[in-house]
C-alpha cells in the first residue's frame, strides 16, 4: 500500500537491545504498537546487562550484575511480547545505514558475525538506543597486548567468564572502574591497584546531586567494602604514565597528579602486572543520529538532543539511554520507557488524527520525570568529578601511537596542527590518516581533538570528535552494497 498507514499495523524500529532499547520496545508494545528490535549482539542486554552465552551454563549469571531485579522483569515482559508477536527481535544485525523515507525510516543491517549479507528493516518511527563505548586517552605502551579497555575486560568477564590476566591493574577514570575492579576481583583476579585520576574532593562539591540518589551512594559504599575485602589498593589523583613490555604488558608506571592534573615528578612507581584494564569515561555512538540529521549537543559530553518526551529534532525519531548522554543503566531504562510511550502515542495519533486523545502528548509520568531528573543530575555530577584532566595530553609523547588503526604518532598529529595548518580534527585526519582506519576514528577521535586543542587549534564543534559524520556505520562488503534493494523507494516492508 502506497499510503503510509500509521494505524494498528504501525511499526517502531528500535536500534539497540540494551536497557534503553528493551525498555522502549516494551513500553511501545504495551501500548499496542508492533516493534522490531535490531541489535548487533547475540543476546539482549547491551553492555550493562551482558550475559554469558547460554551454552556456558552459568549458574548465577546475575552474580555478575549489580541490579538484577529490574532487568529480569523487563526481560520477561520483552519475551512475552515476542511470544505474542508484538515484538520482532533481530539479534546479530549490525546496522550500517539508516535512511529517512517517505513513510518513515529504513535501516540496512549486516547479518551475523560474518556480515556478508544485508537485511533491510522499515518502520514508521525509529528509536535509537545505540549505547556507548569507552574513551581511552593514549599513553606510551597503550597498544601492548594485555592492555584493554575497562569495559572490554568487563565484557570478557560477563560474556565469556574469562579474566584478562592474573595480575591486573585497573586504571583511568570514571564510575565504570569500580564495578570492573570489583567484578574482576570477585572472579579471582588479583587487582594490583585501582588507579583513578579523579579528585575525590569533587564528590563533596557535588554532594547534593549524590545525596539525591541514595541508592547510588549505597552502591558506592558497597564497592569500598569489597575493595577492602579483596585488599585492592586504590589511588585517587593518580594516572598510568606508561605501560611496559615487549610482546605484552609486563608492568605499568603510575604517578601522582597535582591539582592541575599534571604529573608530580618523582612520584612515579612501577607496578608489575600482566593486564591493564583502562578507560577514561564513555562516549555515545552517534553515527546513525548524525546521518539522520538529528541535533547533537554537548551537555555532560556529547549526546543526541531530545525533548521531554525523548524525541529528537527529527520528526518520528527518538533517542534514549547513553545515546542522549552518558547516564548509566537505570537512566537508560527510564528514558527508554518514556521514548517508547511517546513513540506509541505519536504513531497512534497519526493513525487517528481526529480522535481526541485527551492529552496523549503528555507522555511522561511525573514519577518517570522525577527519576530522570534525579539520575541525570547524578550523572552530571559524576561527569564533573570524573572528567579526565586536560593535562593528560602531556603524557602523549611524540612517538606514542595516537591512531591505533593507522599507527599515526602524536608527533605526526602535532606537526599537522603546528606546521601544516590543520586547525581541526578533520583536517588532521586528511593530513595524517588518523581516523581513516577500520574504526573510523572512534578510538582516536578524543585524543586527536585534545591534541588539536593543546596545539591551539579548534577541537571542533564538539569535543571527542563526536561530530564527524560516518555515512557507513559499519564496513560493508562491496558485493553487498552493490545489490539493489527492490524496495529502496517503496513502502513495503520485508518480513
Amino acid at each position: 500500500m502506497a499510503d503510509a498507514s500509521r494505524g494498528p499495523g504501525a511499526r517502531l524500529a528500535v536500534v539497540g537491545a540494551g536497557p534503553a532499547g528493551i525498555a522502549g520496545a516494551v513500553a511501545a508494545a504495551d501500548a499496542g504498537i508492533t516493534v522490531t528490535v535490531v541489535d548487533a549482539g547475540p543476546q539482549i542486554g547491551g553492555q550493562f546487562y551482558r550475559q554469558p552465552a547460554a551454552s556456558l551454563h552459568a549458574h548465577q549469571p546475575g552474580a555478575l550484575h549489580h541490579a538484577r531485579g529490574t532487568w529480569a522483569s523487563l526481560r520477561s515482559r520483552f519475551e512475552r511480547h515476542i511470544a505474542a508477536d508484538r515484538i520482532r527481535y533481530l539479534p546479530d544485525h549490525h546496522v550500517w545505514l539508516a535512511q529517512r523515507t517517505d513513510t518513515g525510516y529504513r535501516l540496512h543491517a549486516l547479518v551475523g558475525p560474518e556480515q556478508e549479507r544485508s537485511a533491510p528493516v522499515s518502520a514508521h518511527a525509529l528509536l535509537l538506543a545505540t549505547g556507548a563505548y569507552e574513551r581511552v586517552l593514549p599513553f606510551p605502551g597503550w597498544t601492548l597486548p594485555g592492555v584493554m579497555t575497562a569495559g572490554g575486560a568487563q565484557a570478557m568477564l560477563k560474556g565469556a567468564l574469562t579474566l584478562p590476566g592474573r595480575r591486573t591493574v585497573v586504571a583511568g577514570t570514571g564510575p565504570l572502574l569500580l564495578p570492573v575492579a570489583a567484578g574482576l576481583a570477585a572472579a579471582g583476579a588479583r587487582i594490583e591497584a585501582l588507579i583513578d585520576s579523579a579528585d575525590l574532593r569533587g564528590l563533596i562539591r557535588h554532594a547534593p546531586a549524590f545525596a539525591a540518589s541514595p541508592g547510588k551512594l549505597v552502591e558506592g559504599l558497597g564497592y569500598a567494602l569489597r575493595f577492602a575485602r579483596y585488599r585492592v589498593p586504590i589511588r585517587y589523583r593518580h594516572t598510568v604514565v606508561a605501560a611496559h613490555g615487549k610482546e605484552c604488558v609486563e608492568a605499568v608506571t603510575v604517578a601522582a597528579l597535582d591539582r592541575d592534573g599534571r604529573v608530580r615528578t618523582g612520584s612515579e612507581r612501577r607496578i608489575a602486572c600482566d593486564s591493564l584494564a583502562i578507560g577514561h569515561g564513555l562516549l555515545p555512538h552517534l553515527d546513525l543520529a548524525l546521518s539522520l540529521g538529528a541535533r547533537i549537543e554537548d551537555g555532560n559530553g556529547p549526546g543526541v538532543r531530545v525533548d521531554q518526551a525523548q524525541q529528537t529534532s527529527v520528526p518520528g525519531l527518538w533517542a534514549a539511554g547513553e545515546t542522549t548522554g552518558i547516564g548509566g543503566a537505570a537512566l537508560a531504562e527510564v528514558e527508554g520507557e518514556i521514548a517508547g510511550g511517546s513513540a506509541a502515542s505519536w504513531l497512534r495519533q497519526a493513525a487517528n488524527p481526529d480522535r481526541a486523545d485527551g492529552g496523549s502528548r503528555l507522555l511522561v509520568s511525573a514519577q518517570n520525570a522525577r527519576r530522570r531528573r534525579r539520575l541525570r543530575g547524578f550523572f552530571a555530577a559524576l561527569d564533573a568529578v570524573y572528567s579526565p584532566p586536560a593535562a593528560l595530553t602531556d603524557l602523549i609523547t611524540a612517538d606514542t601511537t595516537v591512531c591505533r588503526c593507522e599507527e599515526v604518532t602524536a608527533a605526526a598529529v602535532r606537526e599537522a596542527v603546528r606546521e601544516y595548518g590543520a586547525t581541526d580534527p578533520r583536517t588532521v585526519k586528511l593530513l595524517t590518516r588518523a581516523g581513516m582506519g577500520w574504526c573510523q576514528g572512534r578510538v582516536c577521535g578524543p585524543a586527536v581533538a585534545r591534541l588539536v586543542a593543546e596545539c591551539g587549534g579548534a577541537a571542533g564543534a564538539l569535543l571527542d570528535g563526536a561530530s564527524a559524520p560516518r555515512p557507513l556505520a559499519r564496513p560493508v562488503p562491496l558485493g553487498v552494497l552493490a545489490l539493489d534493494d527492490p524496495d529502496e523507494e517503496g513502502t513495503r516492508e520485508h518480513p
Partner: protein
Amino acid sequence: MLIRRRGTGARTEVASPRLAAASPESAFVLHVDDREIEALAGHTVAAALLRAGVTSWRRTRVTGEPRGVFCGIGVCFDCLVTVNDRPNQRACITPARPGDVVRTQAGTGHGDGASPGARDG
C-alpha cells in the same frame, strides 16, 4: 579452578567458578596456526585465545606491532584475525565453532606481510 598454562608458562588464565558457577558443555578444538587450543561453546574466538594464554594474533600493517583484544566489544577493530579463510574478523565478536581454523594475520590481512598463518598472496 580452571587454569590454562601456555607452553612458555608466561601467562595463566583463570576463570573462577565462584561467581558464575559455570559448567559448560564439552570443549572442542580450535586450530590456531599450527597448534590446537581448547574452546568452549559460547566463547568468542578472542575469549578462547585469551584462555589459552594467547594475547596477540595480529601484526600491524606499518610497524608490525602485536595486537590482540583492546575494546572487547567490536568497536576498535584491533583484534582482527583470519577465521576459516575470511580475513579481518573481529575476534571479540566472532563465535568460536568446532573445527574453526584461525590464523594470525599481518599486513592488510589479505596475504601480504610475513606471518606464520598468512595465505600465499
